[in-house]
């Protein structure tokens, strides 16, 4: 039984004369991982930026559980349950792993007027952060400075921070970028666990990972959706092969 969580309805974005996305439609379902593939410049980043609220669309709508969230900024969408990780690691490098996640958890329990409360001793935020750290596989690293973590661990921290905001829709922008094969395998395992009760959009270049974990794959080329469907369909699609292998082979 599938349940649509986030629906992109004919999203279009122009940058001056350039059309970066043209009528892109994507549906994310609870319990499913939807991968977004495409060569460089296909418009994947523009698409994820519109879904997260970092970039307003020129046309089209975004629905979260049936409600129109197109006009909300990224902070408001985060509160509705959309969480996002970034392609270029985007953490608080001077803070500890725990404080990175605690700040994420605190956004749900802000208490801005409690100025005599020690933030590090607000037990609910610390516990939520700790749980997210363990879930993302960083248990034991709580007190390391985030900037001193390995690249792969920083990618895990990105995800832990999103988890700590209790996001139900995860938009993950190349979480495997720059990872070694062992780290990649761990991340794929993590993605498999995470999708059980969430809806995930995965933008990724690593084909092996995508085909290992995706339930649906959408391939974009030059700002438009070329094809969308289950992995077998995409694997056998001549259009997709043409887009990836170059057009000269097919004329």
């Amino acid at each position: 039984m599938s349940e649509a969580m986030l629906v992109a309805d004919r999203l279009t974005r122009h940058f001056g004369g350039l059309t970066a996305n043209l009528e892109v439609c994507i549906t994310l379902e609870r319990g499913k991982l939807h991968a977004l593939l495409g060569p460089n410049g296909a418009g994947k980043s523009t698409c994820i930026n519109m879904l997260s609220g970092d970039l307003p669309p020129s046309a089209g709508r975004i629905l979260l559980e049936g409600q129109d969230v197109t006009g909300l900024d990224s902070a408001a969408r985060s509160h509705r349950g959309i969480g996002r990780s970034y392609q270029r690691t985007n953490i608080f490098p001077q803070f500890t792993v725990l404080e990175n996640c605690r700040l994420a958890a605190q956004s749900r329990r802000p208490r801005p007027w409690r100025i005599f409360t020690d933030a590090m001793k607000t037990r609910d935020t610390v516990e939520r952060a700790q749980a997210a750290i363990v879930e993302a596989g960083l248990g034991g690293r709580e007190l390391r400075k985030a900037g001193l973590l390995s690249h792969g661990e920083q990618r895990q921290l990105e995800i832990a921070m999103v988890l700590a905001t209790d996001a139900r829709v995860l938009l993950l922008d190349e979480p495997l970028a720059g990872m070694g094969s062992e780290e990649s395998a761990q991340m794929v395992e993590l993605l498999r666990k995470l999708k059980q009760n969430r809806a995930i959009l995965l933008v990724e270049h690593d084909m092996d990972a995508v085909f290992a974990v995706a339930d649906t794959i959408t391939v974009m080329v030059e700002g438009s959706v070329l094809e969308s469907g289950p992995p077998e369909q995409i694997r056998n699609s001549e259009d997709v092969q043409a887009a990836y292998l170059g057009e000269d082979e097919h004329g």
Partner: protein
Amino acid sequence: MNPRVVLSFKLAVLAGLVLFPAIGSSFYVELVAKILVMSIFAMSLALLVGFTGLVSLGHAAYFGIAAYTVALIAPEYEAANLWFVLAASVLAAGAAAFFIGLFVLRTKGIYFIMVTLAFAQMAYYIFHDTALGRSSDGIYLNVKPDASLFGWMPFNLDEPLHLYYFILAAMVAVFVLLAFVLRSPFGRVLAGIHSNEHRMKSLGYATQRYKLAAFTLAGALAGVAGFLYAVLFGFVTPDYLSWHQSGNVLLMVILGGLGSLAGAVAGAFAFIGLQEMFSDWTKHWQLLMGLVIVAAVLFMPSGLAGLPRRIFRTVNWGEDDE
């Protein structure tokens, strides 16, 4: 550094300040009182520059607005009630910061520096050139406010010593308040904004509101300083709002070390102390001051606040850094 060592050092400095009037002449007591007032001013700016990453070059506006508020509402030949004029001045400065913050916080980086300066210049000219400021020479505050509270008189600001301890208490109160604020959930959000505002937004923080709250609080605390300055010297002039004043307090914060309250206090002491010393030697004291600032930026990148740690490290004696 061991937090206990740091705390004992701060308490020792506080004890020194409490005991100072016993040894210092009245000239020096007034000088230290002036430095304490400027410490409050510097701490209020440090909240923005050092902890939130908002470099304001117009912070003197709020200092001056509070100073003018007390001068304008106090009766000419009688004492005003201290608590009333204090509250009114701080509220006026905070309200001004709130409204100006609504506009300036829409900008970032160099533009933020420019528009904070522009608003402060506007405030300067309001007091310099319009009837509200009465005269471009300033206004005298002839009578010090009266501290009585429901008929009880806890202290008398006409007594230089009482005034000194009142200012010292205000400085300690602002220090403690800001120390609490910085470790509170609100303060941690400011630190997050300083580190990576974009990520704070995507984690669900309405960062604009937090920055506005910080800007308002900083303006109100600058107002505490401006109020005390007016009471201490008994007059106000448009110069209190001038961009020199904004620049000087920014230098105090940088000299002391960004991201440290104690640093802001140390910066105020160093800046005004050196200013007094150099102006005794030569009328070209600003030249020497400039050299000191350049040397400080070159050789003490983390300011006076970073100095103990550097000394400990070079003699290889203190604890580890992390």
